[in-house]
């Protein structure tokens, strides 16, 4: 019994440094931001939710929130739609001893600087860039497509990044599927397609969900890709936050928007995680 109590103290002892840093570097700043967002517009008057009311009243800001959600949703779906076939192609189409190599080669561009990669897409999607030149030479279009500085460009930039992430995650999920299950299905007379749909898809669902979830959460909070590729045609919430901070010098409003952003993400997290756990259990 004495050992157990000293155990507990020792445990706290080891955790304390990390907690200290977290309190100073995370919880305190977040607290200050909360306080700032709740400060009334006219000091001295009661107006705790002034900033939130302002947020709801400005279509530009609400629009930014909607853009963030919309783009993140598309990106999550598209990234998984790209990552799954790629992961499946490696797991089922490449000899086992080469799989890690192929996977590594595929996700190597993950290591280009995030800023640079977004900028590179500007070059690729330009009217005289590779994509347009290719489409025109094949005769699919006569006039170059205006791809840059749009929601499409932002989405493509995001999907490029998150599909690599999705590929890794779904790959490890697929690897864990017991090959014997597929053999057994084959023995029982199921064709490849049927086995795929009935066995592989459901069993890979958890990893697909994780990939989509990560893409969604990370995408909502990103500033760089929309700023470089979006051309301010459909500003997202992080851009609105930076504008409030830099252009309008409105720190309380920036804090308010930051809180809205955080709340949305936390909401997604708290909804998705229990659903995920329940599904996995079953």
């Amino acid at each position, binding site marked *: 019994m004495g050992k157990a109590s000293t*155990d*507990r103290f020792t*445990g*706290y002892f*080891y*955790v304390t*440094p*990390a*907690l200290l*840093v*977290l309190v*100073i*570097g*995370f919880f*305190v*700043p*977040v607290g*200050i*931001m909360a306080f700032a967002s709740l400060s009334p517009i006219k000091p001295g008057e009661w107006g705790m939710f002034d900033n939130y009311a302002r947020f709801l009243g400005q279509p530009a800001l609400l629009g930014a929130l909607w853009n963030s959600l919309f783009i993140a949703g598309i990106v999550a779906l598209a990234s998984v739609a*790209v990552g799954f*076939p*790629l992961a*499946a*192609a*490696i797991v089922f*189409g*490449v*000899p086992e001893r080469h799989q890690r190599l192929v996977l590594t080669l595929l996700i190597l*561009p993950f*290591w*280009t*600087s*995030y*800023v*640079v*990669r977004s*900028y*590179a*897409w500007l*070059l*690729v999607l*330009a009217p*005289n*860039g*590779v994509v347009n030149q290719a489409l025109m030479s094949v005769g699919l279009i006569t006039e170059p497509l205006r791809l840059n500085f749009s929601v499409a460009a932002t989405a493509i930039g995001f999907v*490029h990044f998150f*599909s690599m992430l999705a590929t890794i995650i779904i790959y490890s999920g697929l690897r864990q599927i017991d090959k014997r299950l597929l053999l057994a299905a084959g023995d029982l007379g199921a064709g*490849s397609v049927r086995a795929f749909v009935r066995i592989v898809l459901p069993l890979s669902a958890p990893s697909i969900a994780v990939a989509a979830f990560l893409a969604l*959460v990370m995408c*909502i*909070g990103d*500033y*760089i890709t929309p700023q470089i590729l979006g051309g301010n045609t459909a500003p997202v919430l992080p851009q609105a*936050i*930076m504008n409030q*901070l830099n252009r309008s010098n409105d720190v309380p409003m920036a*804090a308010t928007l*930051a809180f809205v*952003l955080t709340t949305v993400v936390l909401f997604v*997290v708290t909804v998705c995680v229990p659903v995920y756990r329940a599904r996995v259990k079953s």
Partner: protein
Amino acid sequence: MSVLKKALSAVVLLVGFAFIYLPVIVLAVFSFHDGRAAVPPFEGPTLRWYAEVLSDPKVGQAALNSIILGLGSSALATVLAFLAAYGLGRYRVAGGEVLKGAILLPMNISYLVIGIGLLILFRNAQLPLGLGAAGLAHVIMTLPLCFAICLTAITPKQVRLEMASRDLGASQFMVLRRVTIGLAWPAIIAAFFLAFTLSWDEFIMTYLLTRFDVTIPITIWSMLRTGLNPATNALGVLVFGFSLILFVMFEIIYFRKSARRTGP
């Protein structure tokens, strides 16, 4: 493996590779572009942008800052994370689950928000911005991830080994050194490298929290904002090369160590 399967996979992978590598190839090609604007059509190859980037003292200083920031924050984050993982994984602590959740919380929060929060804190406390402030932000960013990774290394088997060595007369410190860290070594290395990778490439928090101690991502961003220039491409390619080297180094160290550990 049927021919159809192989063919289908090959096609999928080919298309996939093309999509993934497209921007990287365009970036690399135009880093040799002989002209001011890094836009098509391509003009004959030249190395002058690489020369410009490599001889620019600001780039060198930025690289140094990136490395200092990365090594410092990653080391600190890994140490804190490991200690916390040890404390919460090895010992039964009241409210342990809550503490675990608290440590993992920053992972769900956008870096922009964390950065702004710290900016406001430093401003209110009249503290100087710079690599230190950015370092703190990076520790917050990487601590949860390192913690999660280290947690996986604190297993019941390891706990039993600890107890065994304690019974054999080893001091607590020796136990920690030899047994705990010795066994958790691959996880610690993985955590450190991951933290470094994240820190090395991190832009938004560093941008908010430094003034003139720029890092490579900020240098690249400034180059994008202050001039149309293939030098940006050249820097991007160099950064890519460096990251690749790091990655390869990591693979070698990590897999050599694990192999040795699980060897005969």
